[in-house]
């Protein structure tokens, strides 16, 4: 029965070109291919432009996911760019107890999110710039997600990154994911 099945629903916020769609995809493949779970992932179906706000989504559950509707009440939210605060409603539909993971150099209180939400912050841009060489933070944030929540393991994330990217690039992205994992653990 569907009400007995716990579905984790993840909403990714980013700007076009930051890798939100690929991040949602890598998360889904990590859970589905390397943790024996089921997943679906999809971009927000809107026009995509570099720099414009975009969303992407991942669902993860212990049995096949049948629903095709949009995600309205995400249990996890990943924000790749803190300039989106005030531009889009990061907290839209978030139930109490949900987790929000933000790439920012600000402190948690500075983000002024409701107290009912668990907030984890890290400067993923700094990590990505240092290790990958560019501030594309999707894989770094996946490492942080593995460190801050029980949603997915670091090992599965690393394997899914290795599938998604060319070998050399994958190595640096995996190293960034590991660094973020250690940082938030």
């Amino acid at each position: 029965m569907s009400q007995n099945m716990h579905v984790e629903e993840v909403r990714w916020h980013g700007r076009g070109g930051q890798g939100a769609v690929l991040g949602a995809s890598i998360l889904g493949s990590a859970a589905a291919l390397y943790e024996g779970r089921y997943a679906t992932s999809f971009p927000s179906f809107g026009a995509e432009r570099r720099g414009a706000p975009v969303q992407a989504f991942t669902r993860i559950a212990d049995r096949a996911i049948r629903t095709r509707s949009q995600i309205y009440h995400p249990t996890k939210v990943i924000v790749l760019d803190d300039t989106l605060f005030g531009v889009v409603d990061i907290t839209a539909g978030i139930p109490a107890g949900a987790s929000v993971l933000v790439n920012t150099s600000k402190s948690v209180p500075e983000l002024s999110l409701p107290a009912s939400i668990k907030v984890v912050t890290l400067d993923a841009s700094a990590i990505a710039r240092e290790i990958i060489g560019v501030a594309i933070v999707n894989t770094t944030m996946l490492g942080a997600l593995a460190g801050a929540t029980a949603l997915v393991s670091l090992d599965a994330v690393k394997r899914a990154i290795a599938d998604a990217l060319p070998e050399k690039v994958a190595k640096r992205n995996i190293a960034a994911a590991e660094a973020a994992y250690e940082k938030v653990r």
Partner: protein
Amino acid sequence: MSTRTPARKYITANEAVACAARLARVEVIAAYPITPQTTIVEKLASFIARGEMDADFIKVESEHSALTACMGARMAGVRAFTSTSSQGLEYMHEMLAYVSGGRYPLVLVNVCRSVALPWSIWGDQQDAIQQRDTGWIQIFTETGQEAMDMVLQAYRIAEDHRILLPVMICLDGFIQSHTEELVEIPDQESVDSFLPPYDPVVTLDVDNPHTISMGGFGKHYAAWRREQQAAAEKAGEVIVEVGDEFARVFGRHYGGLIEPYRCEGAEAVILLMGALTGTAREVVDEMRADGQAVGLIKVRAFRPFPVQSLRQALSLVKAAAVLDRDCSWGYGGALATDLKAALYSLPNPPAMLNFIGGLGGADVSPEQMKYMLDKALAAKKGAPSSMEFIDL
């Protein structure tokens, strides 16, 4: 069943369909490679470029030409494939009837999307529905796996010498085409055993000339069309046969022309086609858990229309909620109106509630599905049929 372990991939339905075309050993692909094309042909082009597929990719200047080139390949006795979407399918319209009238067993994948105007590139089923009367077999699919499996089955159905009609496999734009999920990719040897090489009845051959794409007048024209109608009706049986055979080889069965889900003792059922069936399954499960007598019927074959299966499945039901992501303007949703015709003369038919929804990419939520089923539960037998736009 095959003893080999299939590869499991986390891919979109578009990619799954491309894998199916490769496994079907398609030799000619013709496509117009810009909007509104899909990533299906992009993937196929990359398979060919990497040497993973032995096929000719013909880049043409329009969808009209794409279908014409595929028809030419079929005349030469070659297995061909194309895919399109929305305005692209509309532009193929003239050639769709040419291909079916010529009895060329082509397979086309349509990623269902809305048509202009208003300009919208998002999902609904208006494009495919507008091709209903072009003589193609039309099958709607729910998941990436089913889309892939049905492309393999489509060649068997189309090329069956009792049928020789083209097949359009439909998948829903975005919620299916661009959604990644787990898909099992069968191995080539199993597919080869299920799908033998194309065995054409007539081919272009200078040493053995035939008249093809012939003219026909009056009685001769009608006689040819009557045979086409007979083949289209026969396709219902062949779709079931091929589905059963597919299940024996690959272990997956989709239920033939329709798939009733939890319809035992149901007072109200929801009927729909395509990927939204998945959402409806969740809603039916929840309502059943609350003790409500509801079920769903997934309509898989739209042409041939499964008249007998639907009459049987709906004979005891009090009310049917029909979700159409399309409309025949001035009448109603295509599934609902065809269903009404199919149930004509049924003693005591169910009340019919037609919901037009999910147009232009509008999301259809579980709450909306529940709303439709609640209304159907409250409807009385013999009530006049109704129509309602749910996106507004």
